[in-house]
């Protein structure tokens, strides 16, 4: 037994670190335990090929909450968010669709494909502003429990109700459509241009095991607009140094408030006495005491791996067992000897400094999903690309590049063979797909890292390789994340809390679960 901590946080992913930083900031003695040799979880930068730094898993900062940046003084701790203002959709016929923050240029560019869509695009952006504004407060709200009679819960529920009634009838209708429709159907109401619809729909399916025609995918379209609503703030961007740069900044902030972070310290169990968490046991047999324990791991690990099942109500265990993970994506990171040369837009240019999306049509995406539905990875997948070295030259040697490719779909379980034997085949499918748009890719390829959902699970601990710690669809959001009655970051075990993306408001680099959980813990402590 060593010194006693006020709180032990399991896992130094970005939410675990945010949680620890907030708790330490409030004066608590906090210890963060990380299984790996580096902090960050799925927000890490690693130099896997000499001189080339990969944002190994997550690759853009989506809607990191401004209050977190401010409270934790992240800029002072080295956080730099670089703009990622454009999206290029290269097309098989040698054409492309390009959008960026040059408003009229973007409208002309869409107008080249469809004059109707160019005008619809403006209207759509206007409508989405109201949607994003309606949803934004939810991101900083602790989910209410609709079945509870606790006055505080009832008030939260009433506040939520009046918030939605206050957004106006038209907006409410649009919001309900967003919550229930497929992204393809929703976008069909606005647009004709296939690459435009497909690229927008793609943002609704990232990380989910659903296709653009699956109901419920429209909601995730909003995420993009939530990043834009604050305009000049630009919460949407690329972290200098890769996403690991963000994790380092949060870790530095946490340490500055007095938190201790130990790497190479895998936790195997939460130690309990009666129905109360009293500490954790490490893989090497060490037991560490704490008054409270917070897990930033996903719900499966938090409840089914770390604590004895007999401490949890059976219906809760059943809920967690049914919580859907279903990893659907892989990641391919490339080291390149030169800049990639696109058939549709040769040479260097602004198109290489933004996102590049292999999503030529809704059919293309849906076909990619079809293969995955039946247990095969997409042979022509949706690929979301960024070239970090174009945005932050420090990511690769001068004139050389790293390319981050998020690849969907890759089901966790393959119908034929297994990932151990088919990993490189998956990598080849990605390179072959990319080569159709970037003919010089194979000539400039120096190194590749292929990550399947199985690899993501093994390295980061994310169950089934689900990047959001559980499917982001309506049935697993808000007061159902991760289970009814336990969406307020508490658990059936006293002194045991959850703060990962498996809690509200879910995945993506927001830091919001980590922060909201910390605020609830502090409330329980009367701080």
């Amino acid at each position, binding site marked *: 037994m060593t010194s006693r901590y006020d709180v032990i946080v399991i896992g130094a992913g970005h939410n675990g670190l945010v949680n620890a930083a907030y708790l330490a900031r409030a004066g608590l003695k906090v210890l963060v335990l990380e299984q790996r040799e580096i902090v960050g979880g799925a927000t890490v930068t690693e130099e896997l090929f000499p001189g080339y730094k990969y944002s190994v898993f997550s690759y853009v900062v989506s809607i990191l909450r401004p209050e977190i940046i401010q409270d934790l003084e992240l800029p002072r701790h080295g956080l730099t968010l670089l703009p990622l203002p454009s999206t290029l959709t290269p097309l098989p016929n040698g054409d492309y669709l390009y959008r960026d923050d040059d408003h009229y240029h973007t409208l002309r560019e869409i107008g080249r494909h469809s004059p109707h869509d160019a005008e619809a695009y403006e209207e759509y952006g206007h409508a989405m502003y109201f949607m994003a504004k309606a949803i934004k407060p939810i991101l900083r709200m602790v989910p209410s429990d609709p079945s509870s009679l606790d006055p505080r819960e009832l008030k939260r529920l009433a506040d939520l109700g009046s918030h939605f009634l206050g957004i106006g009838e038209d907006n409410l209708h649009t919001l309900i459509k967003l919550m229930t429709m497929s992204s393809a159907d929703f976008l069909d109401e606005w647009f004709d241009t296939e690459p435009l619809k497909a690229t927008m729909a793609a943002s609704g399916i990232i990380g989910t095991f659903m296709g653009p025609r699956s109901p419920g995918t429209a909601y995730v379209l909003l995420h993009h607009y939530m990043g834009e609503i604050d305009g000049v703030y630009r919460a949407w961007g690329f972290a200098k140094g890769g996403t690991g740069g963000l994790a380092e900044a949060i870790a530095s902030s946490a340490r500055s408030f007095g938190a201790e972070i130990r790497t190479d310290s895998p936790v195997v169990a939460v130690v309990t006495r009666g129905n109360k968490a009293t500490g954790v046991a490490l893989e090497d047999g060490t037991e560490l005491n704490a008054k409270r324990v917070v897990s930033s791991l996903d719900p499966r690990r938090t409840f089914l791996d770390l604590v004895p099942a007999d401490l949890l109500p059976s219906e809760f265990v059943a809920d967690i067992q049914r919580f859907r993970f279903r990893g659907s994506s892989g990641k391919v990171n490339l080291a390149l000897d030169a800049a990639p040369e696109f058939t549709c837009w040769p040479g260097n240019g602004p198109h290489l400094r933004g996102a590049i999306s292999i999503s030529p049509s809704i059919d293309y995406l849906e076909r990619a999903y079809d293969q995955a539905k039946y247990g095969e990875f997409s042979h022509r997948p949706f690929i979301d690309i960024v070239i970090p070295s174009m945005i*932050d*030259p420090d990511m690769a040697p*001068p004139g050389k590049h790293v390319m981050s490719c998020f690849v969907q779909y890759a089901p966790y379980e393959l119908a034929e063979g297994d990932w151990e034997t088919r990993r490189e085949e998956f990598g080849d499918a990605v390179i072959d797909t990319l080569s159709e748009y970037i003919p010089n890719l194979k000539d400039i390829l120096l190194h590749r890292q292929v990550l399947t959902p199985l690899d993501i699970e093994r390295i980061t601990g994310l169950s089934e390789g689900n990047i959001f710690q559980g499917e982001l669809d309506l049935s697993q959001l808000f007061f159902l994340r991760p289970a009814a009655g336990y969406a307020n970051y508490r658990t059936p075990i006293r002194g045991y809390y959850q703060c990962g993306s498996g809690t509200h408001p879910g995945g993506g680099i927001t830091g919001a679960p980590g922060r909201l959980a910390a605020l609830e813990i502090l409330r329980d402590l009367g701080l």
Partner: protein
Amino acid sequence: MPIPTPFHSRTSELNQTKEWREWSGYWSAATYQHTHEREYFAIRNSAALIDVSPLFKYDIVGPQAAAVVDRIVPRDITRCRIGQILYSPWCDDDGKVVDDGTVWRLAEDRFRVTAADASLRWFQDCGAGFEAEVVDVSHSIAALALQGPNARKILLELGGAEGLIDLPYYHLTQGEIGGAAVTITRTGYTGDLGYELWMDSADALEVWDRIVLAGADYGLLPAGLAALDVARIEAGLLLIEVDYISSLKALTESRKSSPFELGLGWTVALDAGEFVGRRALLDQAARGSEWSLVGLEVAWSDLDRLYAAFDLAPQVAGRASRDPAPVYVGQRQIGQATSMTFSPMLKTYLALATLERGYADLGQTVELEMTVEYQRTRVPARVSRKPFYDPPHKRS
């Protein structure tokens, strides 16, 4: 009509927006690309090339050059070694600031002074009776600022100059780029790692081309004044005619400022011999100054709240503003903010403000006027340390 700088044939080709500002009578690119944001991030994240030729430059040469410079500026020039540079304001007889710039010691008997305004007559008057000559080299010397964390790497790629790798902050060295003689000073107006390169106007294009080529793999971009304005506010650097008014141009006494009032008291060496304005400043040092130029920070959460009251998400301009705004404590106006910008690095809203003594201490909360939905409103602001952004690589 403004006239072109020696780099105009390059900058005009690159200036896609065709947006120019007039800077001391020269064409100066405001922003090369449709938004200045990328140029700003080049300054902070990679490297930016800025045409700063419109700065005024004077050489002061002769056996008594040091005595003349010592007379002009309140700093102690006897302590300026050869190759060293000092930042300094200079004052009139009443101790009110006329202008500010850098003073370089090129040799025992040779100095260069950069200034924001034409200063030949002022310097000549200050040097009357001394054995030294003031030469206006403003038009014959072209100048480029190479600013950003990759600036040193780019200069080294060019072969650079002797001692460049260790050249300390506010020092200079002589080098050669593409056969052209270039004076390299480790100075700038961005608060980042950076250099300024000074060359004969005839060599300007050759030097520009070499730097652009060497910088291609280091994320170098040409940057205009819109990006520079954001960076200089983050660096807490003052701009004449905006944050203070030259005493030679002020229309009222109250518009004049002493170095103490501008937060430049550290440049005033009262016990190091005679300089213009010394007696007045001695007096003022004893009395203390009534005003103080400070940094203000407005938290994003406060802007969010302010706009939410109008049912809006925050709508904050990306560009720096030079429209002054009153600053209040309670019902009392206690000063004015003169430069404001949202800081993309710090994610807060920054202002440079001149406040009454008594309200200018670090941590003091004041209220800054902001117009939202045509209504004058106020947002809380806190007196903060300047520079707001001060990365270690600025000096390392």
